[in-house]
């Protein structure tokens, strides 16, 4: 039974993720008053990339990509999508956040294994950015956990009987959304993948098949991050309302990223530890004092 649910979760992640990325490119185009590619463009890109004959830099390069994709698939399996929960009792918030690090470490190791300094600079930036957005995110989430006294994601979702956690703890919601932008690697925070400065950062030596696998990994990781946000902050939802909320959050994130230029890496860390971290502590103070709407 769990196998069926896991397959369902993975397929949702694949199809919904890629279509939403196509829609995001369409929105970005419309913001720039362009016609924009069809919504299924990302499917074509992924399969085209997979069908080409690329180059590999040795066994650590391949192992890194496999570990990255495997890690993110494993993380996705644990994330509850609305009421579709693959492992009912075991979806602990810290597991998902730290299993996600397996994917990040795998990719980082594979890319630096290619031997290109652009990749190492990109990975160093990615890890720094992770240090930046991870701390406020986890503090805000810890406030929610403390309030609801449970750390299982589906439990958190179920606990929002009366109103959404977003309305209960607005500041926590804002902090989580800002860190979400950092996690997605969208425009304001895409310093690690800056195509102009470091030739698309870690992906500099990724040729055909590996580029395709990494695009899949990127889609799954986007799916994991946003579904975490939706589950915790946007109230109870069955499978369809979950996808609806997911799309709304995704569109807002795309709109923000369509208009903002790219941060420098010091600014990212300084920003995350000035504004969101202090907001997170304010929110946590409110939770301790019990001032929750």
């Amino acid at each position: 039974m769990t196998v069926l649910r896991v397959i369902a979760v993975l397929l949702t992640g694949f199809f919904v993720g890629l279509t939403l990325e196509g829609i995001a490119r369409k929105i970005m185009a419309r913001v720039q008053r362009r016609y924009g590619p069809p919504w299924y463009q990302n499917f074509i890109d992924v399969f085209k990339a997979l069908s080409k004959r690329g180059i590999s830099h040795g066994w650590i390069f391949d192992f890194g990509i496999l570990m990255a994709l495997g890690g993110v698939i494993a993380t996705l399996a644990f994330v509850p999508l609305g009421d579709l929960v693959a492992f009912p009792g075991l979806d602990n918030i810290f597991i998902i956040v730290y299993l996600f690090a397996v994917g990040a470490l795998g990719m980082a190791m594979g890319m630096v294994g290619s031997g290109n300094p652009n990749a190492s600079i990109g990975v160093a930036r990615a890890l720094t950015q992770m240090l930046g957005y991870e701390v406020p995110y986890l503090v805000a989430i810890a406030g929610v956990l403390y309030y609801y006294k449970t750390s299982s994601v589906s439990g958190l979702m179920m606990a929002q009987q009366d109103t959404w956690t977003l309305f209960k703890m607005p500041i926590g919601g804002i902090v989580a959304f800002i860190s979400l932008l950092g996690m997605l690697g969208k425009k304001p925070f895409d310093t690690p993948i800056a195509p102009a400065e470091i030739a698309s950062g870690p992906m500099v030596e990724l040729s055909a098949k590996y580029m395709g696998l990494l695009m899949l990994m990127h889609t799954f990781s986007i799916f994991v991050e946003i579904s975490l946000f939706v589950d915790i902050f946007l109230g109870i939802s069955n499978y369809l309302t979950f996808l609806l909320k997911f799309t709304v959050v995704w569109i807002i994130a795309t709109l923000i990223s369509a208009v903002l230029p790219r941060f420098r890496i010091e600014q990212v860390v300084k920003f995350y530890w000035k504004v969101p971290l202090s907001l997170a502590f304010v929110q946590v103070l409110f939770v301790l004092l019990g001032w929750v709407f």
Partner: protein
Amino acid sequence: MISLTNLILVFLIGSIVSYLLTKANKILGSIFNFLLISYALYVVWNIKVGHEEVLFRILRDVERTLKVTNLGKYFAIVSLIVISFVAFFIIEWIRKKDIKPAAFNSFLLLMVSGILGVFFSNDLLTLYIFWEIAVLGSFLIVPMGKKESKRAAIIYVVTSAIGSYMYLFATFSIYQRYGILSFEQVSQYLANDSSNLFKWFVILFIASAGIAKSGIFPLHTWLRITHGNAPDAFSAVLSGQLVKMGSYVLAIALSVFPTTQLFSSFYHGVPLLNYVLIWLGNISILIGTFMAIRQNDMKQLIAFSSIANGGYILVGLGIMNSIGYAGGLFHVFNHAIAAAMIFLSFAAVVYRTGTTKIDEMGGLIWRMPWTFVTYLVGIISLAGIPPTSGFISKWMIFSSLVSKGMFITLAITFIGSVGSFLYVFRPLAGVFLGQLKRKHSDVKEVPIIMLVPMLLFVILTILIGVYPKPVLDSIVSIENEVGIKAIEHSGTIIKTPLGQWNTLTVFTMFSVGFIIAAILYMIFPKGKKVDLTDQYTGGEYLYNYDLYHYATGFYRFIERLYDKHPSFEKLYEKLVSFFRYIGYFTYKLVYKTSPSGYVFWITIVILILFWVRW
């Protein structure tokens, strides 16, 4: 099976035997070492808890006893595992030219005898005696490292002396007040002792020995120099095991003398003393993490990470609820194994390349793949990433902190754990990945004898990561012994009031994900293998690929944010020079060159004596 006292005696004699044996033949001596230590591990493994032995009698009415407690047995097993693996590693490593093998082996055995005594002593004075033996053993080995290790040894001994003398002061004040020294009696007397100030003084001073030894905030400066410069294999023992003696004393100070009953709850059930210690742990996590990100010498980098992980253990132990305490103890196991594993892989790298500077190396994975695998699994466990055991202890500490609602500590532990991704990745990218330097192109993999312990460590970490039952069982028995509500776990599922997770499903799901990725990888056309110098260089031709490696100033953009950070080493050095100046001043004052000066001072002293009339 011989009794504990005989085991310790065997080790003391063994150190002399091994000295002679190693003088005769290096390999034989180290093999003898390894056999003796693994025999000790075997003895300790199946010793019965509660087994008592009388050692000898110094003070009139109080006899020195060795008593096997769950806590002591757990720490002893962890330490002996680390030391036996390192001893096996040393068999091949001892051939290195610049250390004196005979002295090395004998002092190693001396240190192990000290360690055995520390973990099984039943009262404060015996613990102190064996503590000093262990410190003596390690103190004599440290200067055999690089040229700066002489100074490092002195700093190491001075800081650990500060800790142990405060501990001794507390022991004697207890003895002077109650006349007893064994742990149970002391905890009873303390429980119904009235003066709060005395309790505070005793527990803090006893804990100070732990603070000094495990490198917590005020006394953490020795770790960088000593680990950085000690002989490579020994720094694995130093950080893997000796730091754990400090954690043992901290565990005693916090749990054997039940701080929760002694003091009133200050914040959500955490007494004020624990809260102060937790904050010391927090500061050392911050210092360890941010200083480790800056280091360019890989051994000093992991030394700073030992400070951070020592802070983790203290935070875990300080919380004193069932999950937090279990998290702290489990982290003792994880950090011991992970730090030893990482230092062994560094010893292997130094054995082959001779340098510990990260930017002088690169691309060693293509020549030393197994050392890379050891280092990789080591950092995955150190950084606390799920498939390995490192994550379990961090998860426990996080959930206990959340349930206690201590959010600033939580934020700092998050900084520590995410920061550990950063600093563990720096040597991975600088030393193992990236471009292989031409001068390292003929570097070979380390001999098989050095590889065996490293790969055993890898298997052990992953095994415990997937099936943590044995460690969790011993932690449950410790918690029952110490009187904390034990955590409930069944096989691979760990339950906490906040939530539960199953290590087995995480591992199977991870391998399923890996297989899916592998299938996708197989289906599509195979990539053409390209060697390391065929890179995208922006269309330009490069012939010297040594320069095409990014390792110096790996996180320069964060380091710039805190370049003017307060350095405690400089503070202590100023203190030292201040005292030296005072000494010099009095020396100048008293020792006049002319005889009349002496006569003058002698008369002064005689007058004072008469006035006081003794």
